[in-house]
């Protein structure tokens, strides 16, 4: 502990090169970067909306938007402008203050998360050496995670303050979904942190000089990609705005620019998580082997970064175009019962492998320990996995989850139908009896 007495001192001594460069940025450059970053967010959003419509259109054998601007690419800009001039409607039942602030809360973190993304390498801007990154914090990853968590507030508050049942249900679903997948997302990052020994995004990119983590940490990558789709409420996990069930989601009651802000935040988030995936697993702006020499130039790295990010964004669109929406319970089960345990086991494995390598690779005891542990885990999981066929009823007949009655959609009824009926009809009688008994007991 004494060795770290100097830790809080922030002299230039302990800084990485990136941090030094960033620390030396003059204020105008910082401002420039801030504006540029903001612009990237907005532009990519406008682009994404258009691109999505076009790609999905193609997948569905229709042209998509093609009127406004060259090739229809200005369609979303026009839509945005149009939204600004639409009438603003605030429902009478809304909680006005919260209703106003919710879009703001949703938007700000989306942009702030952008700030730690290492877009490229070292470049010279107007003669100033710097890197294509706004800030490089030792806790950069946490900034991203924190921002995505705070963004949920915007959704929940927006849904709640609308004073309307659908947005509320959607907001709660959305919150439940985001926080569920945040677990998996966070756990999948641990491996990366372990290998890079840092939570600074620039360091992580640097650490991938010898090989992208996508290969080394494939399970982490898979979990991350799944979780990031869930985290952004995108298809096939777009349950919060399931049109067929919940009208339009948490922003049903929002109009004009407030609606646009939610939209903006959602797409910026998509860009952010894609950029994060790129940073964490695809070596950020690093070009792969045959083109490694491009890595000398920071701007070229920016291009690589952009390409990789766009690939992820394309995947988002692709998923939306091709996959049906999951059911809520399937979705939650995937998150909690597959991704989380998988991540946990994988983390231990990664820790073990890493330690094994670090101790020189000849520590048999450790190897055995590791194998033994994995065996236990696997056995444990195997023990857990068979779905419960015993008669144990669930913890509580949970009737207050926001689900449409199952028997509305499936006439013959899945096995759960009985329970839903039971929960719907029997509970009140028993519940009353129960409360009566309690009163008698008082």
């Amino acid at each position: 502990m004494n060795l770290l007495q100097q830790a809080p001192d922030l002299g230039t001594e302990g800084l990485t090169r990136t941090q030094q460069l960033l620390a030396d940025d003059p204020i105008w450059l910082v401002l420039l970067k801030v504006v540029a970053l903001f612009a990237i967010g907005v532009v990519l959003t406008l682009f994404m909306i258009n691109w999505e419509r076009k790609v999905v259109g193609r997948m569905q054998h229709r042209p998509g938007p093609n009127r406004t601007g060259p090739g229809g690419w200005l369609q979303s800009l026009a839509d945005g402008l149009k939204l600004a001039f639409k009438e603003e409607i605030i429902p009478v039942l809304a909680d006005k203050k919260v209703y106003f602030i919710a879009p703001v809360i949703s938007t700000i973190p989306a942009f702030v998360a952008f700030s730690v993304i290492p877009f490229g390498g070292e470049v010279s801007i107007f003669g100033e050496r710097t890197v294509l990154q706004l800030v490089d914090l030792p806790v950069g990853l946490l900034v991203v995670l924190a921002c995505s968590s705070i963004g949920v507030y915007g959704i929940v508050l927006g849904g709640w303050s609308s004073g309307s049942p659908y947005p509320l249900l959607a907001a709660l679903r959305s919150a439940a979904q985001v926080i569920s997948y945040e677990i998996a997302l966070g756990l999948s990052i641990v491996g990366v942190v372990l290998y890079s020994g840092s939570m600074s995004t620039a360091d992580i990119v640097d650490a991938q000089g010898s090989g992208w983590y996508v290969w080394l940490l494939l399970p982490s990558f898979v979990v991350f990609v799944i979780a990031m789709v869930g985290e952004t409420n995108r298809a096939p996990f777009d349950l919060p705005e399931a049109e067929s069930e919940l009208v339009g989601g948490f922003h049903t009651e929002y109009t004009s620019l407030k609606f646009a802000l939610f939209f903006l935040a959602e797409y910026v988030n998509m860009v952010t998580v894609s950029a994060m995936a790129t940073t964490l697993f695809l070596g950020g702006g690093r070009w792969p082997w045959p083109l490694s020499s491009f890595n000398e130039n920071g701007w070229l790295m920016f291009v690589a970064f952009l390409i990789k990010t766009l690939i992820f964004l394309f995947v988002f669109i692709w998923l939306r175009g091709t996959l049906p929406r999951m059911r809520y319970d399937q979705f939650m089960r995937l998150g909690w019962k597959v991704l989380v345990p998988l991540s946990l086991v994988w983390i231990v494995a990664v820790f073990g492998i890493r330690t094994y390598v670090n101790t020189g690779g000849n520590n048999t005891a450790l190897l055995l320990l590791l194998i033994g542990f994995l065996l236990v885990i696997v056995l444990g999981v195997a023990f857990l996995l068979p779905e419960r066929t015993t008669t144990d009823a669930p913890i509580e007949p949970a009737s207050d989850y926001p689900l449409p009655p199952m028997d509305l959609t499936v006439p013959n009824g899945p096995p759960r139908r009985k329970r839903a009926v039971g929960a719907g009809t029997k509970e009140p009688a028993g519940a009353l009896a129960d409360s009566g008994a309690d009163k008698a007991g008082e």
Partner: protein
Amino acid sequence: MLDPYLPLVLLFLLAGAFALFSVTAAPFVGPKRYNRAKLDSYECGIQPSPQPIVGGGRMPVAYYLTAMLFILFDIEMVFLYPFAVSADRFSAGGLGVFVLVEIALFIVTVGFAYAYVWRRGGLDWN
């Protein structure tokens, strides 16, 4: 030398200014042609059922379960990150196996809770 967090704050301010501008500008830019139906909450065109309180009614309590689970595992992550960051240094300091055993114990302990929640149906949504 600038505070390393300053740019972040600037970005925050910019985004905030933009968002605030948008929400405040909206009423002034758009037309105003209110009628009663517009101001009702949206319920697929049927007459909205009266809401008990301003602000969107009541929270289904069951969502708390999800919140609890989230908090448990989120906190687990809080500990995993410092472990991950410093694991190499511990290895270099000769405590690699010790740390590994510790982290494994930690995860197994969380695993107990996880197994409990799973088996008792805490992860079933229906």
